[in-house]
């Protein structure tokens, strides 16, 4: 498609200290493209939450970001355990994160609700034992 830019990021699994590198890198790129700061903030927050989820639950994954004149789309794909009940996972406060994640200040069950809150569109496709794909769009 004309006038689109695609950027791809690998999210390493298990390394909690490196979670956020993809979002930080995207944030820097969007800044250089002079994208509105509020849009950048929303995209960066939504993507960071997604990254954290991949690190906690799915041993990493990959993220493609497609920037077009109208919107920024983030596609997060992992080959993790999948989500059994998406509706339940979307409820604020519901979490399956282990205790060691909680001591770091995460695991409060706010990740997916935050992603929904900061994006204009969010779709989750997941199959238990196969993996999860989350698509999020922020309109420009």
């Amino acid at each position, binding site marked *: 498609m004309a006038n689109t830019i695609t950027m791809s990021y690998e999210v390493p699994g298990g390394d909690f*200290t490196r979670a956020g590198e993809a979002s930080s890198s995207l944030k820097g790129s969007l800044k250089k493209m002079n994208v509105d700061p509020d849009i950048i903030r929303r995209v*960066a927050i939504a993507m960071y939450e997604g990254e954290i989820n991949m690190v906690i639950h799915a041993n990493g994954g990959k993220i493609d970001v497609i920037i077009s004149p109208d919107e920024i789309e983030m596609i997060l794909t992992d080959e993790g355990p999948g989500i059994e009940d998406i509706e339940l996972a979307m409820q604020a406060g519901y979490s399956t994160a282990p205790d060691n994640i909680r001591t770091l200040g*995460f695991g409060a069950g*706010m990740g997916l609700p*935050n992603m929904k809150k900061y994006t204009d569109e969010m779709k989750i496709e997941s199959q238990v034992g196969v993996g999860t794909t989350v698509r999020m769009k922020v309109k420009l």
Partner: protein
Amino acid sequence: MRVEELILEESFRLVNRGGEIDREILAPYCCDLLSFAMGRMPAGAAWVTVMGNVNTLAVASLTDAACIILAEGSHLDEAAAKKAAEQGITVFETELPIFEAALLIYHKLHG
């Protein structure tokens, strides 16, 4: 109020001088749960917390916080100190309890 004005504050100790030291602080914000802070912290906040790990720095950067204030005598761990320097995020430490640190900033903002 600008971030640099907090350097003169007796009870605050500057542990990392960030790139945007002249940044305007718009409000104090208190929360130790990073997921909550991620969802609710307004841009331009002086974020008062006891969490001093690398994820604190990532959240501050992504939510566009003006600075981090580690209260109750808490410190940045080694990896976090390195990250703060790399990302140019201003961090203060204080012995004050969270509420008092935030109140101090609130009074500076609102007289």
